[in-house]
């Protein structure tokens, strides 16, 4: 069951476990948190830390890391939940100095199956024996494509607001776009999918083929990019609201406040 989380305690530690302190040998807890920041909710395209999904994370002086994750509902989709637990396990295990990693999903209908499957490195299909036919690579790729579409809106909208003609976007390369976090994020998502992401690559591409978007298809492409962003951001907002209600508004480790108007966490 859920251990109560100390509100706003970025450095809270469980009894008997050494947390981050200059005197403690081994892995600084902040490194653990930084590793978890690389793990995203594939559906919401946001780090599990900023979403508030990390209930607790600790590492002992011997290098035993323990991460406890929490989700907005008991019935959150098990496939996405599995990906987050597995990704957190991989990210924490890869940290220099971590001897053993344990990632525990709390309060979920499939907690036992997911936690056991990830600990045994069994894969999704074997963990959910008989209920799944394959691993989750396709699911992940589908949602990366949605993230590319949403990112296209995030990058293109300011350009259009600054007076850029829509048609001119088709001639622009990523290298010609002023640097921003949104641009960096778009490049990363495209690279994750194996799509062109370098300076010479076109700003607007088909997220499935990586090929160019035809001028007559551009207006629809931009509308699709926009609604995909609205959808993801609205869902993230609902998830945050549900999580807050479920856990009595206790803050997760590394959780950030949502600024609703932009739909981005406060530090974006």
């Amino acid at each position: 069951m859920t251990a109560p989380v100390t509100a706003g305690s970025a450095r809270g530690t469980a009894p008997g476990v050494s947390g981050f302190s200059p005197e403690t040998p081994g892995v600084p807890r902040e490194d653990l948190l930084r590793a978890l920041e690389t793990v995203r909710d594939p559906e919401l395209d946001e780090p599990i830390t900023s979403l508030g999904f990390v209930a607790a994370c600790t590492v002992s002086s011997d290098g035993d890391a323990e991460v406890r994750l929490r989700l907005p509902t008991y019935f959150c989709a098990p496939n996405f939940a599995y990906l987050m637990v597995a990704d957190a396990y991989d990210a924490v295990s890869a940290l220099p100095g971590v001897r053993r990693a344990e990632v525990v999903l709390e309060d979920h209908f499939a907690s036992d199956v997911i936690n056991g499957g990830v600990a045994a490195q069994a894969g999704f299909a074997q963990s959910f024996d008989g209920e799944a036919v394959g691993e989750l690579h396709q699911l992940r790729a589908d949602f990366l494509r949605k993230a590319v579409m949403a990112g296209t809106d995030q990058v293109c909208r300011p350009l259009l607001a600054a007076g850029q003609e829509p048609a001119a976007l088709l001639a622009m390369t990523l290298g010609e776009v002023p640097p921003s976090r949104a641009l960096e994020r778009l490049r990363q998502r495209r690279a994750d999918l194996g799509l062109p992401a370098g300076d010479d690559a076109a700003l607007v591409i088909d997220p499935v083929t990586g090929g160019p978007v035809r001028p007559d298809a551009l207006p629809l492409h931009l509308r699709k990019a926009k609604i995909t962003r609205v959808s993801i951001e609205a869902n993230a907002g609902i998830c945050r609201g549900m999580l807050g209600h479920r856990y009595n508004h206790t803050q997760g480790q590394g959780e950030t406040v949502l600024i609703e108007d932009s739909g981005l966490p406060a530090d974006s």
Partner: protein
Amino acid sequence: MYESNGEKYFIVDSHMHYWNAAPDNWVPGHEQYAKGWIECFHAYQGLGPPETHWSIEHFQKYSEDDLLKDVFEDGHVDKAIFQPTYLKEWYKEGFNTTERNGLLGEKHPGKFITNTRFDPRDGDVGLDQLKRDVERWGAKGLKLYTAEWNNGSRGYKLSDPAAYRFLEAAQNLGIKNVHVHKGPTIWPLDKDAFDVSDIDHCATDFPDLNFIVEHVGLPRIEDFCFMATQEPNVYAGLSVVIGGLMHALPHFFAKVMGELLFWVGEDKMTFGSDYGIWEPKWQIEGFVNWEMPDEPAYADYPKLGVAGKKKILGLNAARLYDIDVPKEFQLLDDNSAAAQDDAQLVDDRSQPVAGA
């Protein structure tokens, strides 16, 4: 009915429930699921205004009197449509069955429409039950929950051959409207359970049925909109959109409404309170008063006027269910039967949808 600024709104609450999720109805050994389900719903209620929140005990089991007061006396609703959800794996008598809803409806003639349901995994027994339920309760609509657990199965697709068999049978029994609700589990679990492409197939193959996608396909609004804009018989059920976003996330509410108005259009959107998750009163009053923000970020969204609000709050659902609407509530120039196609951008040359 609701009156504001001299305008009279006929209200059809097209998606509401009369459930029992109290511990006395939990299946022994499956208590954690029954508890988890109702606590999840209760968290949704937390997205509404604080003064409308209920205790978990009240939320688990509200009374007939509570419902009548919240929906009709205080809630402005003229006609309410019961949408059943069975979940008999977790709730002994079901969460809110056709029978539970229908018995309440029978005591209050003229106030309710009772929809029923099917589960394609129930086979011939299920077909017989469907026939009995349609005849007993005079159902013209169905509510289908594709993520329902059934004897070890975690769900189904509406495009499965077994589901087609039930849709054909339902149509032959006189069913007109099919409300569909996606959930987090289907078989196989490695696929996206919220994917709405199965409804796309059904809408094409059953052109005489109307498919009302509840919660507008949340959390896949984009997939839903791309599909709905191409299928004349697909509607957007606004339950959760108004209840879950209008108060808690007003900017996102405006954007989601803007997208729905653009892609789906005001002729194909229907209000549903999702009672008992949220009371209808604040939703209806807030929606009538709501305006698309007059800011650049919302400039390319259609506006929603009084006529559009009247359609969404009641007239569209009244058309789907042949509900008589007194003349004083009707639009003077009602040409809404011809669904306008706002999304003129969408044509055969459109590119593959991301993730589709």
